[in-house]
């Protein structure tokens, strides 16, 4: 299934450096329509006000965590089917289980490489 790389992608992280890194890596795999949010609440506001084909979010943020953002997205009728990839340093089993239970589409553990990011995006959007 061909992936529409012109879709809007929302990346969420409270580390500006990480936003910059992910944006550049996405650019290298030809996703150029990338918007940024610095925490869960900011992301939710942008998601409700826009049209995004993919969310890539960190977990460890305040005041709204990535997990809470995911739960909000899955509870929202308009947003609930939006593919959601968690990119996080949280690599404990309990974290992965909690994210899966909340409806995460895929899970990337930091530090990650460009190939992993590309692979997970293709898997998620290929099934979307």
């Amino acid at each position, binding site marked *: 299934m061909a992936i529409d790389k012109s879709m809007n992608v929302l990346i969420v992280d409270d580390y500006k*450096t990480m936003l910059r890194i992910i944006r550049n890596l996405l650019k290298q795999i030809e996703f150029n329509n990338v918007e940024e949010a610095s925490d869960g609440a900011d992301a939710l506001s942008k998601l409700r006000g826009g049209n995004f084909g993919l969310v890539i979010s960190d977990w460890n943020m305040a005041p709204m965590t990535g997990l809470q953002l995911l739960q909000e997205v899955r509870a929202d009728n308009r947003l609930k089917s939006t593919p959601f990839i968690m990119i996080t340093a949280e690599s404990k089993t309990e974290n992965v*289980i*909690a994210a899966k239970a909340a409806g995460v589409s895929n899970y990337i*553990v*930091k*530090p990650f490489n460009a190939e*992993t990011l590309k692979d997970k995006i293709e898997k998620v959007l290929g099934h979307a």
Partner: protein
Amino acid sequence: MLDSPNDPHPIGIDALKQKLAAIRNQQPQIEPGMITEVVRAVLTTISDDLTAKESSLLREVEELGQMIANTKSEIAALRVDDITDHDIPFATDELDAIVEHTAHATDAILESCEMLDEVSATVSGDAAAKLQAATTKIYEACSFQDITGQRITKVVNTLKTIEGKVAHIVSTFGATAAGARDAADHVATDADLLNGPQLPAHAMDQSDIDKLLADF
């Protein structure tokens, strides 16, 4: 207080003195020196008995008091307050500075890398591919700043916990109002899942995560 069911001398000292005084009144011909001698001997015996029963406890109490006094002096000599007033704030400031400096450095690296990306767009073929491969590796490597930042945050939180416990110890030995700070440490919330980066020896890698996800 001095008499007990097992006491071989059930009469108190005052009562004994009264009885001896009564005997002296009834028998005035007895030499006062003899009475004094007898009384002294009896009192010495009583005193010896009481000491034998209570001296161990009294000695322990005395030793405990001395130990507390010594510990207070030692804590004062260590200037434990310095840990909360100076050492820990200093350490956390240093760690914050590390995060700030690495963030600046990372931004500078990323800026240069973005410039290389722009250049790579103007060339083609093998040169462009090599440039992009190089910049990709730089982007990947720069994520260290996020990981180290989260690790440092964990260290700072640990230092703050130590600071709280030290303050609690100081306040306890200073006989001030007892705190109940520990109770606040055990509020179960969503934050319990914010474990942060795991040490490499204990961390799951991407393949472990993939296997775990596939189990659902």
